């Protein structure tokens, strides 16, 4: 090995190769950004309400129990397709009502069941969160999740 490759050669391969892969990665990233904006998330308009709903999602640390598009904690159900699961994906008003009913019923306090906290969201926040879930439901994610169970 000593004859095949010296330390200097190994170092140059490391620096040169890494630079090459960084450049390739950045080019693909740029293309991916375009794809997201013009294709995969272009099915539904990203409104002010959706953007605010994302913050409701974040400020209450929902991701540390649930998964969203498969990422997060694995303690509570997947939520990308929650609106489809509830059968309200095409009806924003019903989505709001069902989500409001759900949020207000927490925590259930049932012995031996995982507990979701009471987040004390206002009606406006629940509507924004519902809009966010409706928007996420429209993302073209290469056919994931495999079924309604998420």
């Amino acid at each position, binding site marked *: 090995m000593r004859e095949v*490759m*010296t*330390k200097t050669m*190994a*170092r140059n*391969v*490391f620096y040169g*190769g*890494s630079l090459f*892969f*960084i450049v*390739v990665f950045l080019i*693909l*990233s740029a*293309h*991916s*950004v375009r*794809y*997201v*904006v013009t294709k*995969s*998330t272009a099915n539904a308009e*990203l409104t002010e309400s959706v953007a605010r709903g*994302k913050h409701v999602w*974040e*400020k*209450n*640390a*929902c*991701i*540390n*129990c649930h998964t*969203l*598009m*498969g*990422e*997060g*904690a*694995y*303690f509570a159900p*997947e939520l990308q397709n929650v609106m489809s699961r509830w059968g309200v994906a095409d009806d924003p008003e019903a989505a709001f009502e069902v989500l409001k009913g759900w949020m207000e019923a927490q*925590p259930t*306090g049932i*012995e*031996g*069941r*995982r*507990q979701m*906290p009471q987040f004390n969201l206002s009606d406006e926040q629940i509507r924004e969160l519902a809009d966010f879930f409706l928007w*996420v439901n429209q*993302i*073209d*994610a*290469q056919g*994931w999740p*495999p*079924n*309604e*169970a*998420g």
Partner: protein
Amino acid sequence: MKYQTQKIAYWYFLAAMAVFAVQVLGGLWAGWIYVSPNFLSELMPFNIVRMLHTNALIVWLLLGFFGAAYFLVPEEAEREMHSPMLAYIQLGILLLGTAGAVVTYTFDLFHGNWLLGMEGREFIEQPVWVKVGIVVAALIFLYNVSLTVLKGRKTAITNVLLLGLWGLALLFLFAFYNPANLSLDKMFWWYIVHLWVEGTWELVMASILAFLLLKLTGVDREIIEKWLYIIVATALFSGILGTGHHYYWIGLPSYWQWIGSIFSTLEVIPFFAMMSFSFVMVWKGKRDHPNKAALLWALGAATVAFFGAGVWGFLHTLHGVNYYTHGTQITAAHGHLAFFGAYVSVNLAIITYAMPILRGRDPYNQVLNMASFWLMTGGMSFMTFVLTFAGTVQTHMQRVLGENFMEIQEGVHLFFIMRWVSGLAVVIGAILFIYAQLVPRREIIEPTDQYESEGA
């Protein structure tokens, strides 16, 4: 201790071990909520406990990396650190930020405030002021260490270490970018999370391992440093485009399925190389270093990282498999063994090596430390097995049969009980490790030979 300023590492390692204790206790708590879901559920809901568990992990690993840098940079650069004062200020900022994050999460202070409130994207939940503190601390660190290296001897070990630390600091800047479009958010979020643990952190890990093997085995520096470059080259060549394995199902183009599958399969190579390299160096090495515990941790890190990050990563990385396993307990199994093997163990290895030197306490108390290695490694392996079983059942029932999530979770309850018991073994091991570092003053078993203390 050859250089006075290496003493800085002592305080970083102490802080790291304290946060390590918080992390494993948080894990024990979170695991208990899986077993008994009503446990203090209104006082400390699962999401808060999990934030403490994951954030504490990241913080203590970084504290350990910083400590490792303060320990090995003076020896490699053959000069004192540029400014010990700056190093202690950096530690103060990091500890203040850590305490601030813990208090903010636990009591949900300043809810919704843009500067003071919790931000809530996974792993980067820290309030903005803490994120700014992390950046300031990183800048101080990089200034201090880079200046020391530039003025002193430059080695491959410090080159790679610095490159890793610069890279991770720069990538952290993406934590300030939060687009409203969830797909873009996720895409750039992985710039931090993936390119940390499967990119820059691997550079840090490899350079710490190289330093340890250099000291413990006495193999020629030229050979070790050449291999270091080869290993980190394979790490970045596979790891950068390997990011693609996170881009399958978040709204990105389908070509990531092939790029991600191919390159993340290659990600096994650097871990296999690190493992093989470590064992070969130990076999080749002529030095019989008395700190056997450090050698055990170094070899253990390389081996468990290969299984946790390499094998368990490959298990669910091909997109055809990942379509079904994505976001199940399989991911949790892989995450636990990978983090433990790669980054926890390499930190505990450098701490085990450095602490006796920093405390001027050679020879070394090894027996308790080695017992803690087997407790933690055994516990973590068993945890990984049971979570893999739970995840396999979950994948089939949820993703193939389409059954309800909560009912499946109740069906695999037994695995969560076994996971908690194995977690208990890890916690006992962690506490034993900290005890072994700090308390005993005599060897439990007197060494049979009289080793010459090499002090290095």
